[in-house]
C-alpha cells in the first residue's frame, strides 16, 4: 500500500517536471533590443532690438552681432555613440525692415569649425513681422562632426543700419535628437 502511494507520489512529481518547460521562446532576442527615443529639446532663443545694430555714441553702424555659448552636452563620445540624427529647427520672427544673414558655427575646444549652418532672414516690419523657418537635418555621416563640437558661435549680420531703425529680430529654436541605444 505504502509502496503504491510512493509510486504515485514519484510519478506525479516526475510528471510535473517533465511537463514543465520554456516552450516557444528565444532569449537570444535580448541582443536585438534597441531603444530609439526621439527627444525634443529647446536650444537657444534671443530677441535682438534694432537699436543693437547702431552705436549712438560713435554714430556708427554695427553690422555684425556675435554671441557664443557652450553646449557641453553635445561633445563627447557617449553622445556620439547613440546620436544617429539631429534636426535643428530655427524660427525667426523679424519686425526689422532689413534682411539678415544668420550663421551658427559649431566649434570644438580648439575653436575649429566642425559644423556650419547659415540662413537668410526675410525682412519684415513692426505691423507685419515676417516668420522665416528653416530646418537643418544632420544625418548619421555628419553627426560625428556635430558631436565633436562643444560650443556654438551665432553671428547675425545686417546689410545696413541706422539710428532710426526699429523692430525686433526674434529667434526660437529646438532640436530633435534621434537616439539609438543598444546594450
Amino acid at each position: 500500500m505504502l509502496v503504491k502511494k510512493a509510486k504515485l507520489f514519484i510519478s506525479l512529481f516526475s510528471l510535473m517536471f517533465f511537463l514543465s518547460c520554456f516552450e516557444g521562446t528565444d532569449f537570444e532576442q535580448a541582443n536585438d533590443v534597441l531603444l530609439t527615443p526621439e527627444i525634443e529639446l529647446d536650444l537657444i532663443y534671443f530677441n535682438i532690438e534694432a537699436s543693437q545694430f547702431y552705436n549712438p555714441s560713435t554714430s556708427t553702424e554695427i553690422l555684425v552681432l556675435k554671441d557664443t555659448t557652450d553646449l557641453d552636452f553635445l561633445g563627447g563620445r557617449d553622445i556620439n555613440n547613440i546620436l544617429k540624427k539631429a534636426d535643428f529647427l530655427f524660427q525667426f520672427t523679424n519686425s526689422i525692415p532689413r534682411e539678415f544673414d544668420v550663421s551658427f558655427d559649431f566649434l570644438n575646444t580648439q575653436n575649429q569649425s566642425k559644423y556650419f549652418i547659415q540662413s537668410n532672414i526675410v525682412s519684415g516690419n513692426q505691423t507685419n513681422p515676417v516668420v522665416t523657418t528653416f530646418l537643418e537635418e544632420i544625418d548619421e555621416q555628419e553627426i560625428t562632426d556635430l558631436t565633436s563640437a562643444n560650443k556654438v558661435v551665432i553671428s547675425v549680420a545686417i546689410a545696413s543700419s541706422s539710428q532710426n531703425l526699429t523692430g525686433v529680430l526674434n529667434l526660437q529654436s529646438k532640436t530633435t535628437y534621434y537616439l539609438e541605444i543598444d546594450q
Partner: protein
Amino acid sequence: MKKFFFFYIFFGVSVVVSQNKQLLYNWDVTPQALMLNPGSVVASQYHIGVPFLSQIHLNAGSSGVSAFDVFADDGVDINTKIRNTIFKLSARDFFTATQQLDVLNFGWLSKGFDPIYFSGGIYQELDFIAYFPKDFAILAWEGNRDYIGKPFDFSDLSARADLLTVYHFGANKQLSSKLTAGVRIKLYSSMVGLESTSNKGAFTTSQREGSNNVYEHTVVDLDLEVRTSGFLSLDGLDQSQVSRILLGRALLGGNLGLGFDAGMTYQFDSQLSLTASVLDIGAIFHSSDTEVYRASGDYTLDGLQLIFPELALGGSTIPYYDNLEDEIEREIPVDTLNIGYTQLRPTKINAALHYDFGPRVGDKDSCDCRSRATKEERVSQAGVQYYTIFRPRGPQLAGTLYYRRKFGNSLSVKTTYTVDRYSAKNIGAAMSLNLGNVNFFVAADNLLDLSNIAKANSVSLQLGFNFIVDQQ
C-alpha cells in the same frame, strides 16, 4: 504519550510569486505552518530544523507580463513586443522577488499544568518590489517627441529592497477546547536597505502661446527621495570585507527593528474552524550608516537665452551654459543627508475558514500526535483562505479555495485555486508522503501554466525533504 522528535531537512528550489504561501498555510506537514500562523494547532511535541537547510525559499514574479510576452519566438520584432508590453502594463503592475533561508528553527512543548508550545529561530530574508515606472519607461523607450503636453509622473518611481536577518521567538497555547492562540516577537537586523516610495512631481514638455522658446520643459512640484541604509560603509571595500561586514550585521550588528506576529485558531465544532494571523507588524529603525538623497523644487527650462552683449576686444563671453546648470541646481537642489529613518515592514494578513469532513484519519493503534486540540482529524478538509500583504502602493490581495485530503497517516494532498493580481486561474497542488522517518514534500503553483513556464506570470515550486525521527 510518545515523544515526537521532528527533525527535518528542507532543500530544493522553490519559486513562489509574492510572499503568499497558500499551499503551506494551515497544512500541518512542516513546522513552517506555525511561521504562517503562530496560533495554529501545533502537531509536534518538539521540532528542530537543520541549520541552513530547514527552509530555502525563492520567489520571483511580475504582474501583467510573462517571459512569453517578450521572448516568444514568433517572428515579431522584440522591440515591438517590448513596446506593446510597456503600453499594456500599468504603473500599478510590479515585479517582486523574495528569498528566505531558515538558519535555525526549533520548538518544544513545555508540558505541565499549562502546556505552551514555544518556538524560535533565525531566518534571513531578501525582499524586493519595484512598481513598473510606466511614464518613464515610455519616456526612455519613445522620448518626449510624441508626448508634447503629457505630464510624466515621478510618483511612478517606487521601489524597495531589504536584506535582513530575523530573530524570532513565539509562544502558542491552547486557551480552551475551542481556541488556540499564539504570538511571536521578532527582532530585525538589517544588512542593507533601499527605498524610494513616496516620490511626486511631474515633467512636461509643452507648447504655450507667448512662451520664450518653442517649448517649455517644466518640472512641477518635484519631491524625490531615495533612502539607503548600510551602503555607505561598504563603498570601496572588496568582496571579502563586504561579506564580513554583512555577516556582522546579520548577527545583530546592523540597524535593528522590532515586530511581532499573532495568530489564532477557533474551533466552532468538530468540523468547522477559523484561523487568522497577522505577520510582521513592525519596523526597522535605520539610525546609522544611512544616506538619504532628496531633490525638490519647480523649474521651467526653455533653452539658452543669448543677449549679444557688447564685448571689449578679447573680453570673455557670458557662460550661458554654466549659468543654466547653476540655476537648475539652485531651483532643484539635490541634498544628501545622513539622517535616520523608520521603515515599516510589509505586514501580511492571513485568514481562513476550514471545514473537515469524511471519515476519521488514522490507525487507532498509533500515536495521534496531532491531538493536542480536541478535534478529531478527518480525511478531508476544504476551505477558503484570504491573504493580503501591505506594499508601498497599498495592499495586494489574494483569495484561495482549497481542498486537502489525507490518505492514512502517510500521504496528504492539498490543492488550491487562487485569484490574485498575477492570475485569475492559479491552480496549485501539494503532496506530502511519509516513508518511515523520511518525509517527501512537493508543492507547485500555477499548474495550468506548468506546460510552458514562459507563459506564466508567476511560477511556484517548492520541494521538501524532511527527515523525521520518531523517538519513543
